[in-house]
C-alpha cells in the first residue's frame, strides 16, 4: 500500500472535502433530476443538508466507523445523498446494481456484513423481502420512493423521509458530530466496496479507501478536463466505478453540475434536453450515435446525403491532418467552418452534443475508426483506461491523437509490461484488496503492483495500448495467437451489429456469435421488405443473416486468413440488462455466453472437419 498522502484542496478524505466545498458553493446548482417530467434543481446546500440528515440518522441508529451500508437503486439524487451521507457517518458504501436478481444481491449483502440498506422502490425492496430470512444482518431498510407501499408495514422497512426525521432530531442534539468524525478520518479508511462481476464464481468485493477516491479526484482537470461550469448527464449505473468517478467524485471536487437521465431507455432523449458540455460514454453509446446518424442519412433526401458525404470528406481530411500533426491552412479552416455550419452543427444538435467541449470514452475498447468519425465533426474523444482495482490511471491528451492507445499513465500512476505481456500498474490510489479474499488479493497485488489481466504494449512516448484480456486471447488449434477484441471492435462499428464475441480457442477456425442492433436491423428489414414478426423471427430471416454476413466479410477482408471469422450465428433472444449474458454496461460476457450458447457454438464446428 502506498504511504503517500493524496490531497485535493488540502483534504485527504471525501468528507473533509465535502464539508469545505459545499460551504463554498452554497446555492449553486449541484444536480438536476426530473420530477413528473419537469427538471428540478438541487443546490450544493441541499446536497449537504440531505447528506447530513442521512449521516445523523445512521449515527442515531448506531452506525459505527467501518460499518457497511448498501445502496440498491438506479441513478437518482438520493443515491448520491446516501453515498455521501454514509461516508460522513464514517460508514462504507456498497453500491448494488439494480438489475441484479435476488441471489446476486444476497451474496454481496452477506459477504459485506451489511447493516443498513437503501432500496430505490418497491421493486428493489421486493428483492430484499424475498431473501429476508437469509439476511439477519440487515437492521433497517430505507426506501427512496414509497409509491405503492402506503399500506405496507414491516418493522425493518421505512421510507427515506423517516430517516431524514430521525436524522434531524439527532442532529439537533449532536451538532458538530459529523465535522468531528470527518476530522478523525484519514486516507487509509475504507470508503467503498465495489463488487466486480466475476466471470467465474461469485463477484469479488474490491475495497476502496478514502485515498482511492481522492486520487481519482486529482485526475481532473489536468487529464480529464471536467470543469466547474460543466454540465453532465448521468446515466450509467453509479455502482460502476466509471460513472462514480465522472458523476460522483469529480463534480464533488470540481463543481460540475450533474443531470440524471430519466431511465436507461430515455438517454438519447435526455441528451438532447441537457446537451452536456462534458460527455462520458462507453463505446456502446458512441457506436449508437454513429449508427443513428448513418441510418438517418440512408433515409435523407439526396441533397442531405450529398451534403453529409461532402462534409464528412472535408471533416475526415481535417482529422487526418490533425492526427498527422500537420498545420491547417486558412482555406482548410474556411471550408471546415462551412461544413460545420451546414452539416455538423445540425447533426450535433440532434444528438445533443452541440455544447460538448470535452468527451471521454472508457470501460471498453473503442474502434479507432469511430474516434476518427467523431473527430471529423470536431468532437475530440479522450480515451481513458483503468479498472476497479486501479481507478482511472491513463488518458489520452488533448491535441495529441494516438488512436488505438489509451494514453500515458497519469501523475501518481505507473504502468509497465510484464514478461508475459500483461499490463502491471500501480497508483497512489489503488484498491486495498478484495474483501474476505486474501488469496485473490495476493494474486492480484504482487510487491505493490497490480496485475491487471490485460495484455498490452507501451510505445516510446509511454502511450499504452490495450491488446486484450489475457484470458480472452485465443490460441487456435493451429497454434496461432489471436486477440479477439480487435476484430470484435471492427464488427461493433457496423450499425447492424450491437456486440460480437469471437470464439476459437483450441478450435480449427474462428467463429463468432453476433448480437444484432435491434433498431437498425428492424429498420433495414422494413426498408428492404423483409417480413418478420418478433426478434427471433427477424434473426431467422435469410436476408438478415446475409446482411450480417456481408458486414462480417467486409471486416474479414482486413485480416489475414487465420484471423478471419469463418462462421457465425445470431443470438436470437433479445437480451436486457437483467440477463446474466450482459454486463451492466450492456457488453456480452464472453465466458458466460460461450457456455450458455455452447450448442450453438458447437453447431459451427460440426460437419466436415
Amino acid at each position, binding site marked *: 500500500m502506498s504511504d503517500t498522502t493524496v490531497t485535493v484542496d488540502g483534504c485527504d478524505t471525501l468528507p473533509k472535502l465535502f464539508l469545505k466545498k459545499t460551504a463554498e458553493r452554497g446555492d449553486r446548482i449541484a444536480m438536476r433530476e426530473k420530477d413528473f417530467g419537469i427538471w428540478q434543481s438541487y443546490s450544493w446546500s441541499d446536497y449537504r443538508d440531505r447528506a447530513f440528515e442521512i449521516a445523523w440518522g445512521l449515527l442515531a441508529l448506531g452506525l459505527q466507523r467501518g460499518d457497511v451500508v448498501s445502496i440498491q437503486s438506479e441513478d437518482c439524487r438520493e443515491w448520491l445523498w446516501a453515498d455521501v451521507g454514509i461516508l460522513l457517518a464514517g460508514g462504507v458504501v456498497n453500491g448494488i446494481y439494480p438489475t441484479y436478481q435476488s441471489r446476486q444481491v444476497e451474496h454481496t449483502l452477506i459477504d459485506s456484513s451489511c447493516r443498513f440498506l437503501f432500496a430505490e422502490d*418497491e421493486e428493489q425492496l421486493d428483492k430484499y423481502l424475498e431473501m429476508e430470512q437469509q439476511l439477519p444482518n440487515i437492521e433497517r431498510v430505507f426506501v427512496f420512493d414509497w409509491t405503492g407501499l402506503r399500506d405496507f408495514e414491516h418493522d425493518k422497512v421505512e421510507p427515506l423521509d423517516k430517516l431524514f426525521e430521525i436524522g434531524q432530531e439527532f442532529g439537533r442534539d449532536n451538532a458538530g458530530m459529523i465535522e468531528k468524525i470527518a476530522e478523525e478520518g484519514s486516507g487509509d479508511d475504507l470508503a467503498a466496496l465495489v463488487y466486480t462481476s466475476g466471470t467465474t464464481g461469485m463477484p469479488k468485493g474490491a475495497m476502496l479507501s478514502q485515498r482511492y477516491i481522492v486520487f481519482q479526484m486529482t485526475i481532473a482537470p489536468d487529464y480529464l478536463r471536467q470543469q466547474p461550469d460543466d454540465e453532465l448527464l448521468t446515466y450509467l449505473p453509479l455502482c460502476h466505478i466509471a460513472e462514480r468517478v465522472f458523476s460522483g467524485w469529480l463534480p464533488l471536487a470540481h463543481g460540475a453540475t450533474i443531470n440524471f437521465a430519466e431511465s436507461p431507455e430515455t438517454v438519447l432523449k435526455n441528451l438532447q434536453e441537457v446537451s452536456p458540455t462534458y460527455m462520458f460514454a462507453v463505446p456502446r453509446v458512441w457506436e449508437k450515435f454513429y449508427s443513428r446518424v448513418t441510418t438517418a442519412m440512408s433515409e435523407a433526401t439526396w441533397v442531405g446525403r450529398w451534403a453529409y458525404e461532402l462534409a464528412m470528406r472535408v471533416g475526415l481530411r481535417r482529422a487526418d491532418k490533425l492526427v498527422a500533426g500537420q498545420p491547417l491552412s486558412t482555406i482548410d479552416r474556411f471550408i471546415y467552418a462551412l461544413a460545420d455550419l451546414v452539416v455538423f452543427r445540425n447533426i450535433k444538435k440532434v444528438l445533443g452534443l452541440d455544447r460538448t467541449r470535452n468527451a471521454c470514452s472508457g470501460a471498453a475498447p473503442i474502434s479507432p475508426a469511430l474516434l476518427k468519425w467523431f473527430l471529423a465533426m470536431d468532437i475530440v474523444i479522450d480515451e481513458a483506461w483503468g479498472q476497479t482495482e486501479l481507478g482511472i490511471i491513463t488518458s489520452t491528451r488533448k491535441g495529441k491523437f494516438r488512436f488505438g492507445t489509451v494514453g500515458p499513465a497519469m501523475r501518481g500512476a505507473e504502468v509497465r509490461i510484464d514478461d508475459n505481456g500483461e499490463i502491471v500498474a500501480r497508483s497512489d490510489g489503488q484498491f486495498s484488496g478484495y474483501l474476505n479474499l486474501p488469496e485473490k488479493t495476493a494474486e492480484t497485488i504482487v510487491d505493490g503492483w497490480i496485475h491487471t489481466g490485460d495484455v498490452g504494449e507501451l510505445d516510446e512516448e509511454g502511450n499504452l495500448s490495450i491488446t486484450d484480456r489475457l484470458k480472452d486471447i485465443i490460441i487456435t488449434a493451429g497454434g496461432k495467437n489471436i486477440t479477439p477484441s480487435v476484430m470484435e471492435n471492427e464488427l461493433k462499428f457496423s450499425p447492424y451489429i450491437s456486440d460480437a464475441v469471437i470464439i476459437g480457442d483450441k478450435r480449427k477456425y474462428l467463429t463468432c456469435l453476433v448480437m444484432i442492433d435491434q433498431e437498425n436491423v428492424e429498420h433495414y428489414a422494413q426498408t428492404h421488405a423483409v417480413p418478420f*414478426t418478433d426478434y427471433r423471427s427477424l434473426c431467422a430471416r435469410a436476408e438478415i443473416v446475409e446482411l450480417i454476413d456481408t458486414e462480417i466479410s467486409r471486416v474479414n477482408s482486413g485480416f489475414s486468413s487465420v484471423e478471419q471469422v469463418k462462421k457465425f450465428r445470431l443470438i436470437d433472444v433479445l437480451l436486457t440488462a437483467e440477463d446474466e449474458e450482459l454486463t451492466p454496461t450492456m457488453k456480452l460476457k464472453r465466458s458466460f455466453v460461450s457456455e450458455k450458447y455452447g450448442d450453438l457454438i458447437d453447431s459451427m464446428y460440426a460437419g466436415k472437419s
Partner: protein
Amino acid sequence: MTAPLLELRNIETYYGPIMAIRGVSLTVDDGEIVAVLGANGAGKTTLLKTATGALNSNKGKVLLDGEEIQCRDPDWVARKGIAHVPEGREVFPFLTVAENLAMGAYTRNDTDAVENDTATVYGYFPALLEFKDKMAAYLSGGQQQMLAIGRGFMARPRLLMLDEPSLGLSPALMQEIFGIITRLNEEQGLTILLVEQNANVALRVSDRGYVMEVGGMVMDGPSDHLLESEDIKEFYLGKKEEGVRGRRRWKKRKTWR
C-alpha cells in the same frame, strides 16, 4: 409449400403524419383461426382495415392466395373473398334482420345457395330467426354481434375477419359467441382472423396468435405457447405472481420470449 391464404408483408399505415403501423407482417393459413392481441391503440383495427382496403398502406404488401390486393377498394377486396365484421357490430339499424343478412350476400347471385346459407345462419343463431322481421336497431348488443357475424358469413368469404367480437358482451354471451365462431371454423371450414383485447378467450379458440404493441409485432406463436408465456400471463391475462408482499405494483420488463 402452398402460399398462405392471407399474408401481410411489412405493412406501414399512416393516419396523416402519424405512423399507426410500423412494419407488420402476418400470415393466415387456410382453415386456421388466428388471433391478434394488443392493447388499445396498438394498431389492431388499423391492421384489419389495411387488409380490407378501407385504409391504404404506404408500404408493404397484402397478399390473398399470393395475389397482391393492397390499396384496392374495399368492395373489390370483399368480392375477392374477405369479409370484415367491424368493431362495434355496425349493423344496418333500419333494416330488418333478414335484410341485413341479404346485404351480406349482396355480391352473390347464386340465389339457391344464398337461401341455404341464410338457413345455416339461422341454424347457428336461433335468436336471429326469432327476430327475423324486426329492425336490427331493436336487437340487443349480443344479437347485433350475432347478426354482424351472420352477415359476414353470408358473403361466403374465404376469410372472415372479426374485430373485437367480445366488445360489450356479458361473459356468458361471449362464451356463446366464441363457441359459434369455433363451430363456424370447424363445421364450415371458415378461416378466421380474430382481433381481440380479451386475450384469454382469443387464445383459447385460436390456433396461432400474434401480439401487437404500439404499431409493431412483438411476439407470435401457437396459441397454447402464448398462453404459457410469462409476459402474456402478466400483461394480458392479469395473472401475476403476488410477490413477497402479496401486492406487487411494479411491472416486470417485457421481454417477449
